[in-house]
């Protein structure tokens, strides 16, 4: 293992989130009860997904500016980790919704947004697999990645503010409003859960990239 400071930080933060999130005091609220602890795991998935997909688009733009197969590999590894986070976000959300809203899926506008994001990234991988030429695949994939991300942003950031939603903060801030959260929970959520899970995502992507670099060794040095 290549040890660097951010990997150690990631382990420390996530250990704190896991122990603190499950053991420390949380406010008692009707309906939510102890499920409120899920906020440490469900919400950071979306922050992580946005960060990872942002990285993926960054590398796609870099590829178009200066064609280099390594950027393409990085773009796909970030996209696949982002998709993993999206799936985990939907699953943790469905489990939570099952106990608080009565059913796992209720066609909430934010659930739809999450499903759209997953479909878009699934289409990205299908598109890539349908092209055999490596350079062309990288280029067309990068174009779709940038285009789809640009179209996804309004779906995730603007439309949820205009429609009614079961999620808290509807008709206003669709994300978590820092002022709404209990002080005890804020101490775990903002400094540890969000950066911790983002770091974990970067770490996973890093591993995928390194694996792909070994697999495609002959391509990269050709």
């Amino acid at each position, binding site marked *: 293992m290549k040890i660097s400071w951010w990997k150690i930080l990631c382990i420390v933060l996530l250990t704190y989130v896991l122990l603190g999130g499950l053991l420390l005091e949380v406010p008692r609220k009707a309906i939510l009860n102890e499920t409120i602890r899920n906020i440490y795991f469900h919400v950071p998935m979306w922050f992580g997904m946005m960060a990872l997909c942002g990285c993926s688009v960054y590398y796609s733009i870099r590829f178009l500016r200066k064609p280099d197969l390594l950027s393409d590999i990085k773009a796909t590894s970030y996209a696949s980790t982002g998709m993993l986070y999206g799936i985990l976000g939907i699953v943790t959300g469905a489990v939570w919704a099952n106990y608080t809203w009565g059913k796992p899926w209720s066609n909430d506008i934010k659930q739809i947004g999450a499903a759209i994001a997953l479909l878009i990234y699934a289409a990205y991988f299908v598109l890539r697999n349908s092209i055999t030429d490596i350079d062309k695949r990288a*280029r067309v994939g990068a174009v779709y990645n940038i285009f789809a991300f640009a179209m996804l942003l309004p779906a995730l950031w603007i439309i949820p503010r205009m429609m009614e939603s079961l999620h808290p903060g509807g008709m206003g801030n669709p994300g978590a409003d820092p002022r709404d959260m209990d002080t005890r929970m804020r101490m775990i959520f903002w400094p540890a859960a969000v950066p911790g899970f983002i770091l974990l995502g970067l770490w996973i992507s890093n591993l995928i990239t390194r694996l792909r670099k070994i697999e495609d060794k002959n391509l990269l040095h050709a």
Partner: protein
Amino acid sequence: MPHIFTLLKKDILLELRQQYTFYGVLLYVASSIFVLYLAIQQPESDVWNGLFWIIQLFICVNAVAKSFLQETKGRMLYFYAIAGAQHFIIAKLLYNTFIMLLMSLISLVLFRALLGNPLVNFWQFTGIVCIGSVSLSLVFTMLAAIAAKAQQQASLMAIMGFPIIIPQLLLLMRISKAGMGEAFQAGALSDMVWLLCGLDTLVMVMAVILFPFLWKD
């Protein structure tokens, strides 16, 4: 600017001479709406609305998919030599928007004639249809350009396009209800229309920026 008009003129002339896409898509519109009529004569307004937009979606995939497929490799090389990528994509966007507007209006008339008329405010709904068909054609033109680079055209376009178009379709179905007599909060309707126009602008800007990368081979 003259390049764009020449390319646009070429597309329209080709259409007038071959008359293949136009009548092909027209037949597609007519027969799918006729099948719908046989299946559920006069549906309620919500069903009418949903069916209308789904049919628009499929018409758009069919009408636009052809626009890049018909250009052979040799012809693309010729365009490459005489015009810029931006001119080419703008001409395509304009042409497809025009075709799609025409098809949407025809299908609106057919829907009204065959599937009943739940519309309270016909002209308002017509306006919404125009906005919607522009949005659909712009997004799918860009996707057709991407799909043309991969081999399986139509299926790939659907896979790539449907998730991207869902937000716009949801907005369109929402504002369509204004034409069916639903009252909106003050400002909500114009907010959504502005958002749709903003999305259209975004698609055009992205197409102009990204198409040059698709174009070189």
